[in-house]
């Protein structure tokens, strides 16, 4: 055991917080991610994380907790994307891209002003890549509350969301308010992505959102099983990632530690590639089995 868990792993306060919060984030991201992948909104999911970055740097600039900055910008951008037409199949990615471009411009400005006035050059790096071991315990309740909110939204909406993801026309015919459901889902996505952005950094939160869900959708049969599998993969990746990052303080180049995000991403992408090893099924058969959003939502 001593070779796996370096001394002090179980008694370290920051590790406890990282493990607890990481678990919550992994579960939330994975559950929300299953719908993100099904709906083909990976780009929106990633963009919301990047946009939350802007909020983080803005909050840094005016000196409030970054978490509120992430949340405010994420939710705002989700509302804006919804407004300018993320629902329309054609041009959805373009609308996402334009919002993202504008937000990144703002991020450049915030970071410039921030480094101008307080001369902390490391700030841009922390905001982009996050730092698991610097979560303060005062932000934990807020983190948990938002995670539960996002999770509850998706769980409550699960059935109508699945239907309107797979077949918007049938859903609309059955009286499901497709647009409202999509908007509520986008909000949940924004909140869960903002959370992940605090933990492993805005850019890499995409890994936790898309990776476990995409892997689960390849191996699991049925949506419920896929959600459970995705959550399991996400939690496993973040736990092993934290253990390895903690151990890596003793690895070369010594005394620096390797980033948690590197381990988590490698584990998640590795897990996804493992599903490729399963016996080959012709792509057409896979598509026929699961008439997923690619057919339903792809631009004509």
């Amino acid at each position, binding site marked *: 055991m001593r070779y796996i868990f370096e001394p002090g792993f179980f008694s370290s306060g920051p590790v406890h917080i990282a493990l607890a919060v990481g678990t919550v984030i992994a579960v939330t991201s994975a559950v929300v991610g299953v719908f993100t992948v099904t709906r083909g909104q990976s780009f929106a999911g990633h963009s919301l994380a990047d946009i939350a970055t802007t909020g983080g740097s803005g909050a840094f600039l005016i000196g409030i907790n970054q978490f509120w900055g992430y949340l405010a910008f994420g939710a705002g951008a989700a509302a804006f994307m919804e407004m300018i037409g993320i629902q329309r199949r054609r041009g959805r990615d373009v609308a996402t891209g334009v919002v993202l*471009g504008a937000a990144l*411009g703002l*991020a450049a400005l915030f970071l410039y002003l921030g480094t101008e006035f307080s001369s902390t050059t490391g700030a841009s790096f922390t905001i982009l890549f996050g730092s698991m071991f610097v979560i303060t315990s005062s932000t934990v309740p807020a983190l948990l509350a938002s995670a539960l909110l996002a999770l509850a939204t998706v769980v409550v909406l699960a059935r109508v969301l699945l239907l309107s993801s797979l077949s918007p026309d049938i859903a609309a015919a059955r009286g499901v308010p497709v647009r409202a459901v999509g908007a509520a889902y986008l909000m949940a996505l924004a909140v869960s992505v903002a959370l992940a952005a605090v933990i492993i950094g805005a*850019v890499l939160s995409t890994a936790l959102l898309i990776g476990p869900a*995409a892997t689960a959708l390849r191996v699991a049969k049925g949506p419920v099983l896929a959600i459970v599998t995705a959550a399991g993969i996400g939690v496993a990746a973040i736990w092993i990632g934290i253990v390895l990052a903690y151990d890596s303080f003793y690895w070369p180049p010594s005394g*620096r*530690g*390797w980033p948690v995000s590197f381990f988590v991403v490698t584990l998640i*992408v590795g897990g996804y590639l493992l599903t490729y090893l399963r016996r080959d099924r012709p792509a057409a058969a896979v598509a026929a089995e699961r008439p997923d959003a690619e057919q339903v939502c792809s631009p004509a």
Partner: protein
Amino acid sequence: MFSGLMLNTWIAATAVAVIAGVTGFFAVLRGSTFAAHAIPNGAFAGAAGASLLGLNAFAGLAVFSVGGALGIAGLSRRSRHDVATALTFVMMLGIGALFVSWSTEYAQEAYALLFGEVFGVSTGDVLPILVLGAVCIAAIIVMFRPLLLSSAMPEVAEARGLSARRMDLAFLLVMALATSMTVPVVGALLMFSLMIGPAAAARALTARPFLAMTLAVVIALVTVWTGIAISYGTNWPLGFFVGVMGAAFFLFGQGYALLRRHRVRPETG
């Protein structure tokens, strides 16, 4: 404003805007917006690796952007395109995070690569930018018709024997090439804004492909030139002006398209 080092800036920025307009037009047409975001951003990890090994940043950018293009195209064979893009992208960034954590003095440089250093273009940088830019434009001109067909009507293109996969790979490689030349100048984030904003606006303004592409180049040029002029005066980052102006042009284009649609078909609204 037009002397010495600033002359390099104007030349480099003009070349970048032309490339961004041309590749951006196809990125928007094909719906490859996510790849347009992922390749420049992920390539930044390559620059971090190159600086760690003491190599030229161009080499690292080229290796990682081409690797990213191959990764996206390879994974797409058996995965959804957006999932393939997302996973390739996060893998590149994960490696980038590792490189940056190993290097001691990288934070400032990372900022420059993400947000650009357009005012620090040396005379030695201008030539490779122009050469690579010319190669990209030439590649797009050679592929223009098949690429347009496979972007606008993939089924028809397949029926005529044009492999969609191969066209996708070719286009991603051109984008990778464009990326490795533009990222050191305008930054990964800016390159994306410059590809998508003007092209999306141009497409909303006209449906004719060649006109739309020309318009995208013109809008990109206007954006960059105005941005540099204001940025020179205020010292605020160029990325801010390009990002915001791209979005403004897009909204203007959308508004115009909406207006035109209302005028042509008032009954369908």
